[in-house]
Structures are given as C-alpha cells and as structure tokens.
C-alpha cells in the first residue's frame, strides 16, 4: 500500500502521522518518518525569505507516484506515504514528509532513506530561493546525487 500527495498549501506532519498510523494493521512493528523543512538560510549562509517550488501540472504527481511505488516494491514494507509541498513555502514549514511502516525496523528505515534520496534528486520540481538579495534557481548538489547513487 502506498500513497503520494502533492499539496499547494501548508500541512502538519503530526496530522499526517496520526492519519497514517490509523490506517495500519497489527502486522506493523515500526514506523519511520522523515520531515523536511524549509531552511531560512541557503548553503552560502544567505537569508531565504521564501522557497518556491514550481511543479508540472501532471508529471510532478507522476514522479511522486513512481518513487513511492518503487519504495513499496523494493522493501518489505506494509505502507508508504509521501506528502510533498509545491508553491511558496516559508522557512520552518514542512516541504516533504515520508513515512514507511514495516513488520521490522530495518525495512522501514531503509525505505524512508530511499524515498528521500530519490525525492531529493528526481521529484519533478524546480526550486527557487527568494531572499533580500534576489532569487536563484537551485539544482541537486553533488552530495544529493551521490546519496541517490547508493541505491543503484
């Protein structure tokens, strides 16, 4: 069972976790979650006032679906959930939330790790940092790509 949702409005990671856990059955022995938050400073230390995530009206959802489905197929998990923001995100707000539920912890940890490495490099978004000095489009870092390559 997997689910991926693209949201244009802020969401609560706590509410997502509560809803996710309510959908689990007695075979689940552990849940791993990760919440990615918008930072108020970029890698160079400059202030970021807003993070803008542009998405494609059809292919972004498809990219999230493909990544969630792949995680569900690859690991011994009972449930996968991905929630991803698009649009204008303020520092401190969640951008992404993933959850993996499994009978045993290792599969849940690995699935969450895999989901994030693929989302960080392959999810179909174009990200722009808006700050007092102007705006800049950003791309995955070499580190992001190396993390993604661990799963090949």
């Amino acid at each position, binding site marked *: 069972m997997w689910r991926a949702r693209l949201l244009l409005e802020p969401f609560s990671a706590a509410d997502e976790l509560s809803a996710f856990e309510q959908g689990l059955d007695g075979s689940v022995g552990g849940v791993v979650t990760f919440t*990615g938050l918008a930072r108020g400073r970029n890698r160079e230390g400059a202030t970021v006032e807003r993070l803008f*995530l*542009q998405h*494609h009206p*059809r*292919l972004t959802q*498809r990219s999230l679906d493909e990544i969630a489905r792949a995680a569900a197929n690859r690991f011994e998990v009972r449930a996968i959930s991905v929630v*991803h923001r698009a649009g204008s995100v303020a520092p401190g707000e969640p*951008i*992404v939330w993933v959850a993996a539920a499994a009978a045993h912890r290792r599969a849940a940890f690995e699935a969450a790790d895999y989901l994030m490495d693929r*989302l*960080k*490099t*392959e*999810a*179909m*978004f*174009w*990200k*722009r940092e808006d700050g007092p000095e102007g705006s800049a*489009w*950003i*791309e*995955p870092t070499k580190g*992001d790509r190396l993390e993604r390559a661990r799963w090949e």
Partner: protein
Amino acid sequence: MNVRLYGRLADLLGEQVRLDVPAEGCSVAELRRIVARAHPAAATAILGPGVRAIVGDDVVGDAHMVEAGDRVEFFPPVSGG
C-alpha cells in the same frame, strides 16, 4: 504553436512563447533552435544540454517529431524535492 516553459527558462522567456513551426512539423532539436533564433538572449539556455522537452505527457528526446497541434513544454534540470 504555444510552448510552455519552466524554471529558469520561464524567467528568460516568460511562461509561454508562441512559435512558428514548419507546416510539416519538426524535431524537438529544431524547435529548440527556433526558440533560440526568436529569442537570442535565451539561446544559450534553451540549447543547453540539460534542457528536456515534454510532448503531451511524455518526456521526449531531441529526435522526437512535433506537429503544430502538439502540446510542447521545455524544462531545465529538475531541482528535486
């Protein structure tokens, strides 16, 4: 043909550009050159190696043929989430 753009390509060209394409259609590579000729300031960006095209709902390569009625979009490398 109206072509939609994403990311930094939209900064350079606007979210949409109108292009005249040959009646017999053309390849995606030729369409990129048409954009470059019509908008020289964006030529380097649109001809760059990381730029990909979407036709309909599919990401396609430079050899893909497009016709006047196709829905075509260009995008720079994705940022990831």
